[in-house]
């Protein structure tokens, strides 16, 4: 063999070595190196995760009374691997057994429903009755591919009680899916849609069971799961609500509204018409920590309607049927109302604080007052002349003239260029929590605190021309004058109003209202489940009150129920005020122009015991007329329920019941 040939054979060898090194390098790169994405992709391609929701946690009241739990619902599933003929046969047989609950068309539609996971047997019927279930199970061999599966659905042992607080569960919407995909939600799964169900979703949901199955290239599952994450049952959420008080509050609100519908609407000038009183809300709150103990909204709805999904007809009826007055809206937090005279709490604080009028300064209430450049006449309700009034009696008797003049002075100060003092009403209102979310776990409206900027912006949005915008956007004396009695642009939610009175009653802590007490282990069997997380009361801010002014105001609010001149004296007639002193303020807020003849908004805000405040109760009834005649009696009923005072009677030991009887 020539040397030339040897060199050439060697060259062939070198080439081969180079090629094999290239293979090794590439193999290393692919398996050990940078191609992590390929691995992830490969795993994603070859396996799927089948997710099954775990039972949701329960919702209980502060005493452990179950408000929402789960019950078993039997569902019929049909395998997806069946050929079309067998499937149609099975669905036909099932339709016979399940009639009239399901037709074959419904079963077929459910089978083909794209929202169901293609990896799981199709659920064709839910909540089938015991008879059908047994009938199918007894002859299961006649139903190839069919299985009876246990699902859990929501159960409401107390019916509609606390519907707005509890909210409801529904199938996750596209928007929610976008927002929650990172949390592991899939199409067709349940999610809290409103109320506590939505607010505490992450506690209640638990962890879904996740089975990793292998799939073939067409995506059908193959063999038993290769990995199972059993998931976790949702945790129990305890609310600050007391279910007994809640039930009593709802009854009081409904009865109060019913009675209002028998009262004449004083705003109708011609002929006789009763008040419409279509809706209302009540909030009862612990002034010492901001926990809501009862929260009612009228009209209400049945959360059980949402089990197994609500029909489009029912949904439209609940939302768009004007005759039903939007029962899904929680008016306690989402309703924004003119506070009327209940706002005098803020006006009183502002007037004394900004040197408009001192607490012991007297003035004469002639029943009306003429104010402003246009010499407009501002009257008390019914133009009643209340005589000599100071801060205390102005509150007790609800003298509008006293506060009209105060409001006008604020305007003068503002006009004179002292904006800080001139907007004292607005500043104090904001400090008391109005015009902003309270931070409660539920959907809420912010309400409005009118000020010059707000008014100009509103005018700019409404009016087309610069001239009109200037005319309607200007800040007039009437704006401050009406605001001082809680009218005009001022609007508040019942919860904001309750929270402001709570802050006043407890000496200056504005708590963040809350409905969640704590979270407890949902997987725990019998016995007392361990507390996983306690929700601590959160103060929003501390407000400083002048001691003597506050004392005068306290006396004024107490006089509302106790003094013969008090606006709610009649409403609390017979209530043992000597044992449980109740302080409060009525409000009757005009809605729209008088000529419309719309009933006034009836409001009452109260806290008790007046000497050592523990609870605040606020009632608002839309088109309910006078605060004293509709809202105040509702609040009285609620106070009776909380204190255990028999309606119209003195309870055995009401104070004791208040202090230590409950929790």
């Amino acid at each position, binding site marked *: *063999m*020539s040397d*030339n*040939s*040897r060199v*050439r*054979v060697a*060259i*062939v*060898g070198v*080439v*081969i070595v180079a*090629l*094999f090194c*290239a*293979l*090794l390098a*590439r*193999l*290393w790169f*692919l*398996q*050990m190196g940078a*191609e992590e994405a*390929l*691995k992830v*992709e*490969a*795993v994603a*391609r*070859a*396996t799927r995760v089948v997710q099954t929701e775990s039972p949701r946690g329960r919702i209980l009241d502060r005493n452990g009374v179950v408000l929402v739990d789960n019950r078993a619902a039997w569902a019929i599933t049909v395998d997806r691997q069946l050929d079309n003929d067998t499937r149609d046969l099975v669905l036909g047989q099932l339709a016979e057994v399940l009639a009239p609950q399901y037709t074959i068309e419904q079963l077929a539609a459910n089978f083909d429903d794209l929202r169901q996971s293609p990896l799981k047997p199709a659920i064709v019927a839910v909540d089938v009755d015991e008879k059908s279930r047994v009938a199918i199970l007894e002859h299961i061999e006649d139903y190839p591919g069919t299985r009876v599966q246990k699902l859990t659905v929501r159960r409401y042992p107390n019916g509609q009680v606390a519907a707005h607080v509890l909210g409801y569960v529904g199938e996750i919407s596209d928007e929610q899916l976008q927002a929650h995909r990172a949390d592991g939600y899939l199409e067709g799964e349940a999610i809290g849609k409103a109320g506590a169900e939505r607010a505490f979703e992450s506690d209640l949901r638990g962890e879904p069971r996740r089975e990793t199955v*292998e*799939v*073939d*290239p067409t995506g059908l599952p*193959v063999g038993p799961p*290769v990995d199972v994450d059993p998931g976790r049952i949702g945790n129990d959420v305890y609310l600050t609500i007391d279910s007994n008080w809640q039930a009593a509050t709802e009854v009081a609100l409904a009865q109060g509204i019913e009675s209002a519908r028998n009262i004449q609407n004083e705003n109708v000038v011609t002929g006789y018409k009763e008040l419409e009183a279509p809706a209302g809300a009540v909030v009862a709150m612990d002034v010492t920590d901001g926990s809501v103990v009862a929260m009612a909204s009228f009209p209400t709805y049945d959360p059980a309607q949402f089990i197994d999904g609500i029909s489009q007809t029912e949904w439209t009826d609940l939302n768009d049927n004007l005759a039903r007055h939007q029962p899904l809206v929680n008016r306690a937090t989402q309703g924004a109302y003119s506070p009327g005279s209940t706002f005098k709490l803020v006006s009183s604080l502002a007037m004394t604080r900004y040197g408009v009028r001192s607490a012991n300064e007297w003035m004469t209430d002639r029943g009306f007052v003429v104010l402003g450049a246009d010499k407009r006449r501002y009257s008390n309700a019914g133009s009643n002349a209340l005589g000599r009034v100071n801060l205390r009696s102005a509150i007790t008797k609800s003298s509008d003239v006293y506060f009209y003049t105060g409001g006008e002075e604020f305007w003068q100060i503002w006009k004179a260029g002292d904006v800080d003092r001139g907007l004292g009403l607005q500043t104090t209102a904001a400090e008391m929590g109005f015009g902003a979310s309270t931070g409660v776990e539920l959907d809420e409206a912010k309400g409005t605190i009118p000020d010059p900027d707000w008014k100009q912006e509103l005018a700019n949005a409404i009016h087309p021309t610069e001239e009109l915008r200037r005319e309607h956007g200007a800040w007039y004396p009437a704006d401050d004058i009406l605001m001082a009695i809680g009218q005009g642009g001022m609007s508040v939610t019942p919860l904001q109003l309750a929270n402001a009175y709570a802050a006043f009653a407890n000496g200056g802590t504005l708590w963040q209202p809350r409905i969640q007490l704590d979270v407890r282990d949902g997987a725990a069997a019998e016995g007392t489940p361990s507390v996983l997380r306690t929700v601590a009361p959160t103060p929003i801010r501390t407000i400083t009150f002048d001691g003597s002014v506050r004392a005068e105001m306290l006396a004024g609010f107490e006089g509302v129920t106790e003094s013969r001149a008090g606006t709610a004296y009649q409403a609390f007639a017979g209530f043992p005020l000597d044992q449980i002193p109740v302080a409060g303020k009525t409000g009757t807020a005009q809605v729209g122009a008088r000529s419309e003849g719309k009933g006034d908004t009836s409001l009452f805000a109260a806290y008790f015991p007046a000497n050592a405040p523990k609870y605040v109760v606020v009632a608002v009834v839309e088109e309910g007329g006078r605060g004293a005649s509709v809202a105040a009696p509702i609040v009285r009923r609620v106070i009776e329920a909380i204190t255990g005072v028999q309606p119209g009677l003195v309870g055995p030991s009401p104070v004791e019941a208040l202090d230590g009887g409950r929790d």
Partner: protein
Amino acid sequence: MATITAPPLAVNRRTRAGETSPVRHVDVVLLVLPFVISGLGLLMIYSSTRTRLERQGIDPMHYVHRQGLAIVLGTIAMAFMILVDYRRFRDLWALIYLATLPLLGAVLVLGASRKGAQAWFDVGPLQFQPSEIAKVTVIIAVAGYCHLHRGDLDAWRLAIAVVMAAIPIGLVLMQNDLGSAAVIAVCAGAVLVVAGVRGRHALVLVLLGASAVGAVVATGTLDAYKIDRVASFINQDSTDQPAWEQSQAEYNLEQAQSAIATGGFSGSGLFNGTMTKNAFVPEQHTDFIFTVVGEEFGFVGGASVIALYALLMWRLWRIALLSSDFFGTLVTVGVLAMFAFQVFENIGMTLGIMPITGLPLPFMSYGGSAAIASFAAIGLAINVHMRRFS
């Protein structure tokens, strides 16, 4: 080595030992290696087909049994190639060559068409692929011709040698078997290089070859799927489009690389490869068998398989140097080139560094003709090795 550089010593050793029987000089490593790799291949074929076959209600050992039969037949072919003195092949190269051509021609007329190639004879339950045999016979023919004109490979003789190779290549191309044609071209090329083709001739040949490939692509003689395969190789980094827009070739490539990447360092373990088990990689028991090794045995397994082939290459390369005559060197270089190219092309395509062609991985891929031809080729090399003293 010493035996070659110092012939007197070799003669000395041979006479002293008195061992002239060729059986004494069998390269045991080379004899055993094909069986080791084939055994591993059987395991991989089983792993990649058992689940699918079970699901279809077929004996999961179906492919294993058939491949086992091919190995037996291959062993017989190897025995034949070892027992007949390779110098008989040297003398009969023209006959062997002329016998190959009608076989390749006949398959075009009589053969069965599968996977886009008309390259098979149906022989009872088995398929016989003449192009696999042609790989070996063309090596013998070109080596025989070059041996005849050793040391004097002028332009004219080179041209004859090239035409000798080009005719079977053309016939194989007509069967739509691009991969085998490439293998034959590489083998013939390697033989010619070692036979002493001159530098400028080699340059002309390379240019001719390149323009031939260009012409074939330009005139659209190739079927669309072949261009697609090459194109997918070139475009593989830009395949972000959804699966349904991918061509079959891109899909193959992506699945193969995913499967190998999943293996990581030590793999998922035998029979545990999810992509393997659930048949995500098309042609996984044939052309893409290396992805099974990659997924189930990881880098350790993949590198070991490459090492086994490297060992095979080394033994062949060594024989090319040790051969007592020029024909032996040439024929072994041809066999070496055949295995090296097929291993590189096959593993390279599963790793995404070579275009997809329908070439089996020698001894591992499911496929009877290839197994038989491979065993026969190794037999030829062993033959050269063991008769280097006789």
